């Protein structure tokens, strides 16, 4: 049964290796070398899928990556289900399981087929026109149903278990496509001795020559020449051959993306091999030999299973020995259609008729067809077809030169071959930003000027004749390698022809009743395109988007040129006047795995861990991501949630002592004779008079006057500053410092060094902090007199050199111990042990946030949003007003920056003393004002204060400092609002006595 539609012999399949596979549960067999499409054809299966929008039964139209219809899902196991694969590119293996898509309950009986009957309701852009009322139905009713009914395959559930690898490669010449032009180019380029990569999307190299058994090259049958050439290339160590490898993207500076499918064709993939390998190739020169794609014809009902491109049918018979029908009709606009008809005829397929669209064709192929006894009608066309699940008949009619149609007759057949001419595959050339030129003779776009190092050869350049294609490939390859080699290949091949059609074929049917498909995958028709033009769409880019023509997963490989032809007719413009749509990567659908490579899971992003990470893990800390850092958020004890843990941690800091890991703070060492001057220019603060051993809270602005970063800066020596930045701002601060130093003030003798990773920072905060540390330090007097708030000292702690800062982000007596990172955990553990008698409590970022909010300390990025000035944040005291200039100073005196009604930092207390506001909520004066309300500001931080026992919030409020004491309102969903009182932003110990203790 399985071989009922096989030729007796021949082709590139291995008839000794029979492979079992299933399609929609049906057990079938094929041979090694088959694609799923060829194996289905050999089994007489022609209904392969349902179309995207109308659920029309569809079959196999092409034999390559241009296939719009035969999309299938291939299932290996639960996690390995690849949807939307082109059956024409899926190689079968023993046990392959494939299913059809977009049908329910089955391919033969598909409920969604109703869409085909109601198609008048679904014209181009229907979603903009119908289904608009009643309002609200779109989101809840129409769209979900339309989405469910439309579409492609389903994505697998669960993570992808396969591995994907990536590698970089460099070569002198990259040749894309291994047909005659590509092979000749690789040959010529390889002779130069440079590195050559030759890739091809197919499993077998040779392109159009694989299925060509009528031509000969250099006195040998084409297949023999291919085999010898490949053997020659394989033997050259500097040549890399990559079959099953699609060049999908052409990026700037000859950077190309290639995806190699390594294991998809294997029944039992080697677990050591990746599923796919991404090749990022930087090629000095590229030769594009990507061939040409045959054009379908646009006539009514041109989409039935059994309607196929002529060249595809030729490939099925000659390459795969698969017979696509019993009785065939050819509709052709050129000679190459005859080649397919003759090959089928030889394989025993009855050719019922040949409809040649040309009025007076002639030539070798026509003669050969007539000699073979084929019935050729010239000046003939197809006006329609019948057959629901498979083609049953076609209507042929005569056309006169003026487009008149008559003498229609119906011919029974199960196969219709379309030969509408050729479209060069210029996608990658176009991606390389190459300009396309319309060739009137070929009626096709061909490559023009190229801004990158690319040459195009063979059919991709519109050179269809075999001898010329080989010659063009050879000279392109030689030139790409820097030579001027030429070769005249002696070939025996039928002359190539250039006949083609664009636009829809004339017919005598009711134009309102018939549909001629242009984009088969997106179900857009000639009628849709004409409707778009009538509705006023002019730009081809707009028509494309409105009708979705060319926007399916095949990117319009078979539909772009027919679309341009129809628009040309409908708009009364020439093809170049109609314009051209843009090709973008990828050339064919490419897996996300390919792009992700190994950057997934733990490898997705680098993870930065602080020196005390392992200790925090051992204490059961809950972590949060801050940039790439893992920071301990809180340390829950048995049964505690975050709220309970934070309450306990905060109280411990206020009453005794807490320990906190601040290692993620950015640290920059600013060194040099001009360090103070540099700091004066970079920060708003004055630095000249800051004494050695003293610290200052620094604020950095952008040149536009808005707060960019903040942090404590310590002066270690007259020429040395220890600058800290926010955790997230470290890289940007260093970048900005370097920018000014290198480009604006290169005369300053200053050197900048990032020291973030060199120092572990252990914050010990609370009234007992001094008592904990005193026994551990040597050479440092911790007394309030010797080391007051905002002072620093160098010495040792636990025998380790330290920079010890007396600073506080909690409002308590506090120290920040900087020790070299390698000693971080050891010192931390020693401090912790020494603190146990004092009840030392580790606290995390959540408690840190609460403690600083109680003190009204801002966090850059929380209280600031890129529009906050130092004055807005209540930090005018920090600005060195006597300084002539600093980054951002001029902006601070712009009129808008001095407006008294700017948003200013304030505190808020809920009037009920119970409700904790949500961060981000808006503040208004009148809660009863209709929407849209006049917003005065928003809440930036909000917590339940453990120290005060009531909610506190920080907010940015228009003219806020003048509003202390006012009652305002926070409107909430549902018409409710919360009354709040405006207060100063420092809630706890406003005099700072604890901090100075």
């Amino acid at each position, binding site marked *: 049964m399985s071989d009922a539609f096989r030729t007796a012999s021949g082709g590139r399949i291995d008839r000794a290796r029979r492979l079992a596979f299933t399609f929609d549960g049906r057990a079938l067999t094929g041979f090694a070398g088959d694609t799923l499409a060829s194996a289905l054809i050999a089994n007489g299966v022609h209904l392969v899928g349902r179309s995207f929008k109308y659920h029309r039964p569809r079959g196999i139209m092409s034999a390559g990556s241009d296939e719009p219809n035969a999309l299938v899902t291939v299932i290996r196991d639960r996690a390995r289900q690849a949807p939307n694969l082109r059956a024409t590119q899926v190689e079968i293996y023993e046990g392959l399981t494939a299913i059809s898509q977009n049908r329910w309950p089955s391919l033969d009986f598909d409920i969604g087929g109703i869409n085909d009957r109601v198609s008048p309701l679904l014209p181009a852009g229907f979603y903009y026109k119908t289904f608009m009322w009643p309002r609200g139905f779109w989101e809840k009713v129409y769209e979900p149903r339309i989405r469910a009914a439309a579409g492609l395959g389903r994505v697998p559930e669960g993570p992808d278990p396969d591995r994907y690898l990536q590698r970089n490669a460099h070569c002198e010449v990259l040749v894309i496509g291994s047909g005659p032009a590509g092979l000749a180019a690789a040959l010529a380029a390889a002779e130069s001795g440079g590195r050559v990569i030759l890739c091809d999307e197919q499993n077998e190299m040779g392109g159009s020559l694989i299925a060509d058994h009528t031509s000969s090259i250099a006195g040998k049958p084409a297949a023999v020449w291919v085999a010898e050439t490949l053997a020659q290339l394989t033997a050259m160590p500097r040549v890399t051959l990559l079959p099953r490898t699609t060049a999908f993207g052409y990026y700037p500076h000859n*950077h190309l993306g290639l995806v190699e499918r390594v294991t998809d064709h294997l029944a039992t993939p080697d677990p050591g091999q990746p599923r796919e390998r991404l090749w990022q190739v930087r090629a000095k020169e590229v030769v594009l030999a990507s061939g040409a794609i045959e054009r379908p014809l646009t006539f009514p009902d041109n989409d039935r299973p059994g309607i196929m491109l002529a060249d595809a049918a030729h490939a099925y018979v000659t390459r795969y020995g698969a017979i696509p029908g019993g009785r065939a009709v050819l509709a052709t606009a050129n000679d190459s259609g005859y080649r397919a008809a003759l090959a089928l005829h030889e394989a025993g397929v009855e050719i019922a008729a040949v409809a040649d669209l040309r009025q007076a064709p002639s030539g070798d192929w026509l003669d050969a067809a007539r000699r073979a006894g084929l019935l050729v009608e010239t000046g003939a066309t197809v006006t329609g077809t019948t057959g629901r699940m498979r083609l049953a008949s076609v209507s042929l009619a005569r056309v006169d030169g003026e487009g008149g149609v008559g003498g229609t007759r119906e011919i029974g057949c199960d196969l219709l071959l379309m030969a509408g001419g050729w479209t060069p595959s210029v996608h990658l050339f176009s991606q390389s*930003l190459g300009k396309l030129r319309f060739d009137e003779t070929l009626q096709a776009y061909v490559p023009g000027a190229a801004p990158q190092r690319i040459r195009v050869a063979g059919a991709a350049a519109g050179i269809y004749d075999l001898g010329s294609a080989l010659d063009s490939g050879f000279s392109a390859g030689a030139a790409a390698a820097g030579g001027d080699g030429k070769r005249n290949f002696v070939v025996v091949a039928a002359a190539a022809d250039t006949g083609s059609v664009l636009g829809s074929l004339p017919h005598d049917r009711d134009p309102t009743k018939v549909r001629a498909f242009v984009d088969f995958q997106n179900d857009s028709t000639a009628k849709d395109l004409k409707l778009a033009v009538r509705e006023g769409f002019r730009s081809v880019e707009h028509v494309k988007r409105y009708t979705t023509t060319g926007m399916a997963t095949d990117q319009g490989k078979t539909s772009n040129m027919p679309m341009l032809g129809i628009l040309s007719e409908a708009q009364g413009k020439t093809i170049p006047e109609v314009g051209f749509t843009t090709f973008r990567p990828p050339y064919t659908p490419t897996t996300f795995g390919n792009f992700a490579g190994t950057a997934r899971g733990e490898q997705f992003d680098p993870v930065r861990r602080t020196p005390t990470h392992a200790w925090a893990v051992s204490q059961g800390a809950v972590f949060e991501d801050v940039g790439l850092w893992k920071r301990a958020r809180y340390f829950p004890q048995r049964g505690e949630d975050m709220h309970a843990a934070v309450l306990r941690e905060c109280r411990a800091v206020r009453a005794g002592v807490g320990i906190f890991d601040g290692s993620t703070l950015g640290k920059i060492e600013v060194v040099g004779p001009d360090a103070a001057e540099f700091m004066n220019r970079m920060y708003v603060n004055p630095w000249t008079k800051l004494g050695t051993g003293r610290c200052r809270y620094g604020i950095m602005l952008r040149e536009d006057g808005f707060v960019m970063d903040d942090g404590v800066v310590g002066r270690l020596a007259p020429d040395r500053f220890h600058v800290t930045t926010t955790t997230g701002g470290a890289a940007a601060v260093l970048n900005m410092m370097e*920018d000014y130093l290198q480009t604006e003030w290169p005369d300053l003798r200053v050197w900048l060094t990032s020291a973030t990773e060199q120092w572990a920072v252990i914050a010990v905060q609370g009234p007992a902090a001094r008592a904990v540390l005193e026994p551990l330090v040597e050479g440092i007097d911790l007394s309030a007199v010797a080391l007051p708030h905002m002072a620093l000292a160098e010495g040792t702690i636990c025998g380790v050199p330290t920079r010890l800062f007396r600073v506080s982000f909690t409002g308590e007596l506090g120290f920040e111990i900087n020790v070299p990172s390698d000693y971080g955990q050891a010192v931390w553990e020693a401090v912790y042990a020494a603190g146990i008698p004092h009840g030392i409590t580790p606290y995390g970022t959540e408690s840190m946030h609460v403690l600083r909010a109680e003190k009204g300390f801002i966090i850059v990025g929380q209280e600031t949003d890129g529009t906050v000035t130092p004055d807005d944040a209540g930090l005018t005291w920090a600005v060195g007003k006597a300084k002539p200039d600093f980054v951002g100073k*001029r902006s601070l005196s712009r009129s808008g920056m001095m407006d008294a009604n700017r948003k200013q930092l304030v505190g808020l207390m809920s009037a009920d003393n119970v409700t904790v506001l949500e961060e981000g909520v808006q503040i208004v004066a009148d809660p009863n004002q209709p929407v849209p309300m006049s917003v005065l500001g928003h809440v930036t931080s909000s917590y339940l204060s453990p120290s005060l026992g009531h909610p506190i919030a920080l907010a940015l409020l228009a003219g806020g400092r003048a509003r202390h004491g006012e009652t305002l309102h926070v409107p909430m969903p549902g018409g409710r609002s919360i009354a709040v009182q405006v207060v100063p932003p420092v809630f706890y110990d406003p005099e700072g006595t604890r901090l100075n203790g």
Partner: protein
Amino acid sequence: MLLIPCPYCGERPELEFRYGGQAHIARPENPAALSEEDWAGFLYMRDNEKGVHAERWRHVHGCARFFNVVRDTTTDRILGSYKAGETRPETLR
């Protein structure tokens, strides 16, 4: 991915660099002397060149230097590069 010629390190892939905006926007010597309009012009106004454009790049994952590149924004072709502080060579106009 662009191949960027760092004047210190040679050609390197774009991944190693960070873009730095239009080149030759010098910070005014005395910002306080500028009118609001002139200062706003320095802060915000940049050419949006279709064609040859001088721009700054920083080899942040290499030598960490800022430098200038002349690039054609329509084709991404790089005409050349030169160090920060140098005037744009006549050959790169």
